[in-house]
């Protein structure tokens, strides 16, 4: 996977994860263009399209578009499953996730993504395992915050 984007129907970016080094200017341009292309698609169209030299796999969940750019040799159908797994993780974590959760807790969304994927590949295929790791990390964060308060 080259990158993953989450954006709303109004074209607002909610999350961007780039797995290749790209200049800031280019990133902005690509995001803008891609959002335009994807948002112009009609609901009944298929989830795959060719854009520049990449394959784009996208799926809409409620008001959010999840959009991945994958390489030539990647399996598009399983990428849909990867996206779905990510949504499930978010859902489990936030409890019935909605766009607002991702807006107000974007850093947590990133943490979950980074526990699930690294360099564009799945780290662990077990949902439970990923969620447990996040849980533990959150606990650790709590502990360190509590310590700070105790010391203050």
């Amino acid at each position, binding site marked *: 996977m080259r990158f993953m984007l989450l954006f709303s129907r109004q074209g607002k970016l909610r999350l961007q994860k780039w797995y290749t080094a790209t200049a800031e200017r280019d990133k902005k341009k690509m995001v803008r263009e891609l959002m335009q292309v994807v948002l112009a698609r009609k609901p009944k*169209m298929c989830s795959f399209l060719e854009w520049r030299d990449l394959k784009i796999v996208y799926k809409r969940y409620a008001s959010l578009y999840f959009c991945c750019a994958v390489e030539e040799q990647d399996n*598009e159908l399983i990428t849909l499953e990867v996206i779905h797994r990510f949504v499930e993780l978010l859902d489990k974590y936030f409890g019935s996730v909605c766009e607002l959760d991702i807006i107000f807790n974007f*850093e947590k969304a990133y943490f979950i993504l*980074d526990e699930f994927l690294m360099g564009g590949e799945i780290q662990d*295929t077990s949902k439970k395992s990923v969620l447990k*790791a996040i849980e533990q990390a959150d606990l650790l964060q709590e502990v360190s915050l509590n310590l700070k308060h105790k010391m203050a």
Partner: protein
Amino acid sequence: MPAPIRLRELIRTIRTARTQAEEREMIQKECAAIRSSFREEDNTYRCRNVAKLLYMHMLGYPAHFGQLECLKLIASQKFTDKRIGYLGAMLLLDERQDVHLLMTNCIKNDLNHSTQYVQGLALCTLGCMGSSEMCRDLAGEVEKLLKTSNSYLRKKAALCAVHVIRKVPELMEMFLPATKNLLSEKNHGEILHTSVVLLTEMCERSPDMLSHFRKLVPQLVRILKNLIMSGYSPEHDVSGISDPFLQVRILRLLRILGKGDDDSSEAMNDILAQVATNTETSKNVGNAILYETVLTIMDIKSESGLRVLAINILGRFLLNNDKNIRYVALTSLLKTVQTDHNAVQRHRSTIVDCLKDLDVSIKRRAMELSFALVNGNNIRGMMKELLYFLDSCDPDFKADCASGIFLAAEKYAPSKRWHIDTIMRVLTTAGSYVRDDSVPNLIQLITNSVEMHAYTVQRLYKALLDDISQQPLVQVASWCIGEYGDLLVSGQCEEEEPIQVNDLYVLDVLEGLLVSNLSTPVTRGYSLTAIMKLSTRFSSLNRIKKVVSIYGSSIDVELQQRAVEYNALFKKYDHMRPALLERMPIMEKTATNGPSETVQTNGETDSTILDTKHLPSISQPASQVGFLKHGFSIQTCAHFRHLNNIQPLNVIIPPMTAYNKNGLIIEFTFERSNPNPNIAVITIHATNSTEADMTEFVFQAAVPKTFQLQLLSPSSNVVPAFNQGSVTQVIRVLNPQKVRCYCEPRTHSASDLQCIQAINFYLSCVPGESNPQPCAS
């Protein structure tokens, strides 16, 4: 200083902004607060401030001033700080930033941290965006972690290693020992997925690694088998299928290992068949596995039964309700159509049905696949479908579809009449989308279908009566009418009912094209030439003369030149007119049709010397296309002769005086180059009979695009006075397409002979004939 506002507070505030300007104002205010907080080196709130900065960065605002703060957070001991710090690093500190490398030490320390979640953060950051330098520095640490017993870290280390290998392929060797036990049974299943990914990366990059890892095939087969056979495992289950992600990765690795290797392919045959037949296809996830299986079967050396099974799976995919599945099937079939042509042919009707799909991506795939499936047997049926598709498809497709149809028709046309009909259909339905180079190709095709001339011109004429907006159609039609107008009015058509038309009507139509706003300048050029040609085929000479003379003062330079030249043809060279305007001979199809290299002048390359008004800008079919296409310059080429005088190739061309003016004489001597007789070697001798030396003498030559010209260095830049010496220079000319061209000398007249005198020549070498036409004027 009051505490900086919390992240969520800021987000809430920014979202209340009603305009872009309001938002910008809020952001600027907050950025200023954050900047001063950074300046104060406030440790307590650094984390909060960076988090806010990251939010603003996502909205599109600059956040580079937070880069160093991210580094400070990473270096902090608090987990919260590290978490945000690493996130910030991943968002703001990619390898293009100067301070990127400053992270290295922190990451190194954190890779050895006592808490696995901190180690995880470091691995993740390195594995997502570490630069090559950083990877080189830290590869050792990653390798260590790859061998740890902690599976949480091991899986992350594996993916980190993948990134390191991508960035610094030379380091691959280093990870080899650690891979020894990656797939062994005693490992927890957790690291299987990442292990397979790592192995795949190594095998993809190195043929040595590939051979080394081939021995893993039996193990991989076993693991896959267990996945399929084993019972329900709730943790890894997706819609009733066990760990589909792992299955897909294993299949992909098997594909790489089995490719080109008989033994490995043999070993995986059974499991592939098993997966192909047993996988549940009701949901996307099952189909994803089947898709990967099909890709693997097609790539390795599988037995034919398995291949047929794979293609049938794709055929079933084509009938699936899910668009994505259909799309994927069409893509795969396109890849296999060359190798398994017959098997794919069986699904032709389904594929053709996909042309009517509503989805653009599917239509495009179906179109490409349809063209690949056209052969001599199904051409008629397929063409019907494709023409229907051409009618109704989006404009984006029309150009490609039209080109595809032309190609297919050319290869498999069952009869000339069918071929012409098909072309007509394309020109009338998608005429404006047809590529520019189709026009000359079609003209060539029509010219060579001698027995169909009458039929063709009649159909084209009728099409023109209906519609003159589609330029390619109009251009081809004008050309044909110009050539075969006599057949048109004499009503000689055999194929269909001949129409009744006389020459006045035909001229009306052609003149209509000249004045119409719909006609492009190129089209006008075609019509004018057509009218001119009819002067030898029709009897309305006066009318034609009148038309031609009117356009002699046209604003369009191209049109004007043509008209002026045709006028000259009427007035001064009327005796030549019939010969010039006679029927075109059959054109040979040449292998390469593209324009070739630029022109070289004494060390400079200058492709613009070419005087384009003498040559068409669209590429032409080569060979004897003739002067009229080019619109030659009659007044300067006073000596052309022997148009049809073909002499054998090996005639030596006698030397000639190419230029003789103002005391400067340039002579050419010719010989054929020894290794390659197609190259003419011309030596020029320049002498100067005036009183003053000619300094800075530069010889430039320009040739049509299909020629190749090489100018070697001149003996000197000064032509001495009083014929005391000469400047010699060798020119090598290659005329691969034997296009005829013509000669025109041009001098930049300079009152001061010591100024640069550039002389342009067009070398004229008639095909097959080594008889250049000197054009000293």
